[in-house]
Structures are given as structure tokens and as C-alpha cells.
């Protein structure tokens, strides 16, 4: 094993050290997953009475999934078709969750010592253990940041957290990626004890020896979801507005927000194993969405890649073009008679922040039913996406990653992963066809940049 070392002491406690070679932080790659099966096999050996898992990294326990690897897997899963392939995809993408459940139900006590960065799939590993000790003063950072990159925690967090603290308290951790405070973690049994590094290990070892029959609370026969499920008085009072409130932030276009809510709602009403199966299906569903790919690329890959570059592009003129185009389009909508309120709202949800277009008083008011509103929103996004593609053609911006990250950081809607990401979400061919319709209706400002057409002809993506 490259990523784990195992040391079985005289009492039969396996000390497992998670330490991915050549990296400053542990991540969960396909290789880590395969080796995890080896750990499970060791745990099953009769001479082993239990295990303590810890990290060999100074910075923390584990940062979660190996996202570049996950992204390339996503491309593969996205292309899958037919029941057989899809079933294989669900099994593959759900493998971390399945391994963690095996750990949790192996029949032997497993404790974990966490410190520093303990996020995403790393936190999910800790949650699948029976006893969790945090190292004091270790800059502990527990969070599930998946939602921020368009993904959902697919390693059981949508099931274990509500089963620990109830739906209402778990919601902001899962739906906003809110950092879990040590105080909340202790109150909710996400962490059982906090102590200095050397005593933490000994405490975990002792706990393992003293609890030979360890089980997760939800595997006890008398287990009840804290504060009741969604169809309880508490659920109606709190879960319903909790759903509504999520339209304030990302909104329903976000690739994983709705799916996380569905994991909470559906998973909390069934036994743990069924809940995990439900989560795995929604995880797979999310991973296949182009929005998830666009967001993960921009909010993770672009951010990481660009942070390593000594020199970043100057995006001022690029962003200026986007703003100008958006403002021009909003003005056109006002001139067509759409109300100030509508255009201002569209500007907020579908554009970089712009100056206020001039109110138009003499235009005849145009009625706006929902399909019209949707089409206006789309038109505003298209105007900016086309501008971004033109800037790329003209060299006003060089790197598509810069173009996307720069735009979303300046306020372009996050769920698109950026204006170029939006083109990919629409699908290049579909985007071009729709842009041509806009060009017919609204003129040359929707004309297609040559580069886009060339990419279509050459079968290339924008980020290829």
C-alpha cells in the first residue's frame, strides 16, 4: 500500500496512517479507494480487534476527492447511456460511499483522529468511523464545500449529518458549505472529544479496546432521527421554509442544490442503507450535469491552476466589454417596453453588475409571462457569452479559465461556471443555433464569432 500504512499493536488495534505520497495533503483518488479495500480486508482478520485512523500530513486529515480525477471520471459518466452502463456508473461513482459503509458496519470499532483540514470526502470518512477525536489547536477546519463547486457530498454526509443533528441543523453545512464550528461539532457528536495530539491517539486506542461492539447510532434498533423527519410537525415548520430560502442564493439552476435537498428529504425517511443508495443516485445524477462540470472546472481547476501562475492576465478590458454588452442588452429590453423592475431583476440574476440603463417612458409596455422572462434571461446570458467568445478570438482574454473565473468572480452567475462554461452547458451546436435566432430577431450584435464556428466544425470544446 502506498497511501496507507498499517501497524497492528500487541492488543490487536490497527493503527492506520493515511499519507498520500508526494502530496502536501491527502486526497481520495481512485488508487486510495482501491487500497482502502485492503484496509477493510485487514480489519476483517481475526487478530485485529479494531482500528484507529489518522493522517500523516501536518496540514490536516484529508481534503476530500481528487477533483481533477473526478472531473475526468465525470466526462466518462456523462457519456454513459442505457441501463447497463448507467448502473455501472452509479456503482462506480458511489464506490467511496459503499466503502465507507463497509467500514462502518465491519463489526469492529473504528476510531479516527482528525486535525487541520478535514473536508469533503475526508470529513465523510471521519463520519463513517464510530469515535472521532479532534486534535486541539490544530486549526481544525471541518466543512463540506462540495455545493460551492457544483457537486454534492456523495460519501454519506447527506445521510449521516441529519442523522446526527437533525435536518434543520445539518442544512447549512450541506447546502451552503458552511464551516462546522468545533462547538457545533461537539454538541452534535460529530466530534466526541478534543485533546492534545499524543493523548488523542491513546484516547482513540483505549476507546477501541473498550467498545468491541461499536455501531453507528443509526444502526441501533431504537434509532430515531433527531427532531423528526420532513413529515413531522417540526419538519413542516422548518423544512418547507428551508427549501424556499435556497432560492435566495444559487437558485434552482444550480446543479447540486436541489439534489442535496432531495437527499435530505428522501434519505431521512428510510433506513441508512436505503438513504445511502438514494444519495448515490443523486450524486451520479449531479455528476452527469454539464453545469456541475462547468462549476467544478471554474471553481476548482481554474482557481487552483491560476493560483499557481506567477503572472495573471489583466482582465479589466475583458470584463469591461462584458459589462458594456450586458448594459446595452438591458437598454434594448427597456426600449422594447419591458419594465424597469423586470430588467433590473434580470440584470441581478443573469449578468455581471452593470450601471443602470436609462428608463424608457414612452415605450409601450410589453407583457412578460414566464416563457418570455426565461427567454429574456437567456438573451442576456447569450449576449455576454458571445462577447466573451469574441474577446477570446480577439485575444482580449487569452485563457478560457481566466475568462470564466474572472467573470464569475466579478458577479456573472455562478451556476454557469462562467460565460464560456455557459456555452458548453447550452451545448455548442445548440448555442450557435439559438444565437443565430437571436441575430435574426435582434441584429448583428448576436453575430457568431468565427472562432466559435471553427471550434464547432473541428468538434472542439471551448476548453480543449
Amino acid at each position, binding site marked *: 500500500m502506498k497511501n496507507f500504512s498499517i501497524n497492528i499493536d500487541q492488543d490487536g488495534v490497527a493503527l492506520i496512517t493515511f499519507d498520500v505520497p508526494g502530496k502536501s495533503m491527502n486526497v481520495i483518488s481512485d488508487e486510495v479507494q482501491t487500497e482502502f479495500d485492503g484496509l477493510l480486508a485487514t480489519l476483517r482478520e481475526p487478530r485485529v480487534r479494531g482500528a484507529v485512523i489518522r493522517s500523516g500530513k501536518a496540514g490536516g486529515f484529508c481534503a476530500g476527492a481528487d477533483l481533477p480525477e473526478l472531473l475526468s471520471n465525470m466526462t466518462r459518466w456523462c457519456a454513459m447511456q442505457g441501463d447497463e452502463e448507467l448502473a455501472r456508473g452509479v456503482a462506480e461513482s458511489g464506490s467511496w460511499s459503499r466503502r465507507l459503509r463497509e467500514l462502518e458496519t465491519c463489526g469492529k470499532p473504528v476510531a479516527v483522529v482528525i486535525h487541520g483540514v478535514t473536508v469533503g470526502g475526508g470529513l465523510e470518512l471521519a463520519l463513517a468511523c464510530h469515535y472521532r477525536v479532534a486534535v486541539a489547536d490544530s486549526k481544525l477546519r471541518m466543512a463540506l464545500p462540495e455545493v460551492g463547486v457544483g457537486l454534492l457530498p456523495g460519501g454519506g454526509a447527506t445521510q449521516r449529518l441529519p442523522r446526527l443533528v437533525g435536518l434543520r441543523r445539518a442544512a447549512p453545512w450541506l447546502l451552503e458549505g458552511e464551516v462546522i464550528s468545533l462547538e457545533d461539532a461537539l454538541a452534535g457528536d460529530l466530534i466526541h472529544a478534543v485533546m492534545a495530539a499524543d493523548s488523542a491517539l491513546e484516547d482513540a486506542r483505549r476507546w477501541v479496546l473498550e467498545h468491541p461492539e461499536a455501531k453507528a447510532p443509526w444502526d441501533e434498533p431504537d434509532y430515531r432521527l433527531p427532531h423528526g423527519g*420532513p*413529515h413531522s410537525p417540526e*419538519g*413542516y415548520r422548518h*423544512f*418547507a*421554509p428551508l*427549501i*424556499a*430560502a*435556497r*432560492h*435566495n442564493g444559487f*437558485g*434552482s439552476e444550480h446543479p447540486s*442544490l*436541489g439534489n442535496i*435537498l*432531495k437527499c*435530505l*428529504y428522501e434519505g431521512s425517511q428510510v433506513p441508512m442503507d436505503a438513504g445511502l443508495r438514494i444519495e448515490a443516485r443523486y450524486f451520479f445524477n449531479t455528476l452527469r450535469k454539464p453545469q456541475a462540470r462547468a462549476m467544478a472546472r471554474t471553481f476548482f481547476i481554474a482557481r487552483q491552476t491560476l493560483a499557481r501562475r506567477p503572472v495573471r492576465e489583466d482582465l479589466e478590458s475583458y470584463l469591461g466589454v462584458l459589462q458594456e454588452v450586458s448594459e446595452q442588452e438591458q437598454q434594448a429590453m427597456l426600449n422594447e417596453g*419591458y*419594465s424597469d*423592475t*423586470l430588467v433590473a*431583476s*434580470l440584470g441581478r*440574476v443573469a449578468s455581471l453588475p452593470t450601471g443602470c440603463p436609462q428608463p424608457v417612458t414612452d415605450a409601450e409596455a410589453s407583457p*412578460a409571462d*414566464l416563457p418570455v*422572462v426565461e427567454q429574456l*434571461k437567456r438573451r442576456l446570458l447569450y449576449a455576454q457569452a458571445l462577447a466573451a467568445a469574441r474577446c477570446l478570438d480577439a485575444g482580449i482574454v487569452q485563457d478560457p479559465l481566466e475568462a470564466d473565473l474572472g467573470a464569475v468572480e466579478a458577479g456573472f452567475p455562478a451556476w454557469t461556471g462562467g460565460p464560456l462554461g455557459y456555452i458548453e452547458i447550452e451545448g455548442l451546436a445548440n448555442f450557435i443555433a439559438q444565437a443565430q435566432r437571436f441575430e435574426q430577431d435582434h441584429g448583428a450584435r448576436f453575430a457568431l464569432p468565427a472562432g466559435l464556428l471553427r471550434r464547432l466544425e473541428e468538434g472542439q470544446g471551448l476548453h480543449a
Partner: protein
Amino acid sequence: MTTAYIFDAVRTPRGRGRPNGALHEVTALSLASQVLQALRDRNQLDTALVDDVILGCVMPVGEQGSDIARIAALVAGYDQQVPGVQINRFCASGLEACNMAAGKVASGEARFVIAGGVESMSRVALGADGGAMLVDPSFAFDHYYAPQGIGADLIATLDGFTREDVDSYAVQSQQRAAMAWSEGRFARSVVPVRDQAGLVLLDHDEHMRPQTTVDSLAALKPAFVGLGELGYDRLAQARYPQAGPINHVHHGGNSSGVVDGAAAVLIGSREAGEALGLKPRAKIIGMASIGSEPTIMLTGPALVTRKVLKKLGMTLSDIDLFELNEAFASVVLRYQRELELDPAQLNVNGGAIAMGHPLGATGAMILGTALDELERSDRQTALINLCVGAGMGTATVIERV
């Protein structure tokens, strides 16, 4: 197809839907069986000829659960052969029951059907039946669910109805209802509710406040501000970006009242009526339901009105009287404006703002109200309709014979 006729319609008076309401002391089952008995007794109906009892009930849990229609028929002393079915199309359940009854008669399945509804809102609380609509994200998140009070305020916001507009409508409802009661316009339909000893418990609509003025309503605080702040305002604006900030204008005084009550309508074929010597009062000439945008939820009435008239080859001018359930003042104001109706043709005897809205029963109640009014004012046609939860509308067109 056989034509479905209306032979009679009865309703209970509406009691305040609270523990201090007069009808709180009787069960929903008792309310339902009392209207069934009244309909039987005053028509000397051989109940063995009733092929079904269809009752609307919107909170069919607790004492209103387990198919209250069948249980009520048995408790009312109907022939054992009379089956019963409870249905739920939210606020239009009572009217939908009538439409289904007409369908059963038209198809030849039934000779007589009794249609109606029951709701004891003081005993089975609003929301007691739960449901996916509120909490399942597959609907609530993906389709922007908002409670109906938010939809009502959203209509006011989009249409620019002010607080004074909706309050003025509420005052009109109170005045019309008071006048209708004082002139005895409901006398034919209202049957008093009797208590366990057989004494009259309530013989008038208890929720009314005839002294209401626009000034007195001005003192009431808008009811849905809190819901809006929970996130529903932002959700409504996300769905309707043209709306701007939601103008919360509705409160208890310009929304339908929470009340207890039941209603029943005797529907059958001409032949069935003739066999018993019953004279039909009207025929059901058209019926329809439709879905509408669910977030705003309450805009089905104009759509279903157009749908049913188109089906009948009729126009708005062919209808003498319009009855639209007063769920919220803005619902009626939008209907009136969108269809350009003369206010003198719409809800002429007031409605649920004044008298209350016993959810499952209201549709059958206002069908009876419209029928009574056609006879009183000697007019021919009425269109009865309601806005419905989750974005629907249900309508019935009747014509006197």
C-alpha cells in the same frame, strides 16, 4: 349522453373555525350526515336510488379520514347499498364532486348522485394532511412552491392592487352577504345544524362582520409578511422577476374565513327525477378543470372560465351570473379585471371573505348560492368556479330549466 340535472342543494350555516365556534362541538361526520339527511328528508328521497355519494374534503385525516363519504351515508341512515367516495381537489373539492356526479349521471352509471363536501376546520387543522407539495424538493424546490397567501399578495403586486383596493372589495363582500341574509336569499339552502340532543346549534353564518369598513380593516396587519421573510418573497421574485418587492396586502379581513360547514347537492337524470316526482331546478351544461402556474397558484379561474366557455361554444355575455370563490380579494379583482366583468354580475351575494370557506364544502355551497340567485332574480345561466391549490381552476356552468 344523459343530461345531469340539479334537483336540490343544501348547506349548513358556517361556524367560526375555532374552538369558540358554534360548530366546534359537533364532528365533521355529524355535519356531513346532517346535510345528507336534510336532502333526503325534504325531497322524500328513496336513498336506494342513490348510486353514489361524493364528498370533497381537503384535510381527509383524523376524524375526516377513511372515506368520510361512505361513513356519513351510513350514519345518515341511507340505504346500505349507497356507496361513498371522498375526493380532494383542494378548494374546489365540493364543486369537483358535483362535476364528477354529473359525469356519472351523464355516462349512465348513476341515476342519482349526491355531491358535496365537508370541512371542520376547527377540529382538523389546515395542513393536517401534510403532503409532498410543501416539503418534497422535487416539487417545492424545482417548481418554486409558495403558500397561497404569497400567491395572493404576488397577484396584488403584479396587478398593482393597493391595500385599499383589496379592503374595499372585502367591505363589499361583507355588505352583500349582510344584505343577502337580511333579505333571506339563502333561506332555501341553509339547513340549521343540530346538536347531540337534536336542538338547533347554529342557523346563520357566524363569521360575518357586516359593520366592517375600509377604515376598520386598515388596522389589520398584513398576514403573510412573516412567510415572505422566511424566503417565500425572494422565491416569488425569483419566479416572477417582473414583480419587484412583494406588496403584502392580505390579512384575515380580506381573505376567506376559516370556518366549519358541509353541503350536499342532489344530481340526477330527468328520468330518475320523474320516477320520484322531483322537479329539476337546473341542468349542468358544462364543466372543466385546468392547471395554471403553481407558484402564483391562484390564477386558474380566468383560464378555466375561458376553457369551459370555449367548450360550450359560449361567450362571457352568455353568462348571467358569475360566482368565484373569494379565496383572497386579489383573486377576484384579477378575475374581474382580466375578463372585464361587470361587478354587478360577480359574487352578488358576497362570498367567503364574509361568510367563510369550509375548504371541501365551499364549491357545492356556492353552486347552491348561484342556483338560488338565478331563481330569485329570474336569470338563466351561472358560471361557478374556484381557484385551486398547486395552480388549478375548476368550473361548472348551470342553466335553469
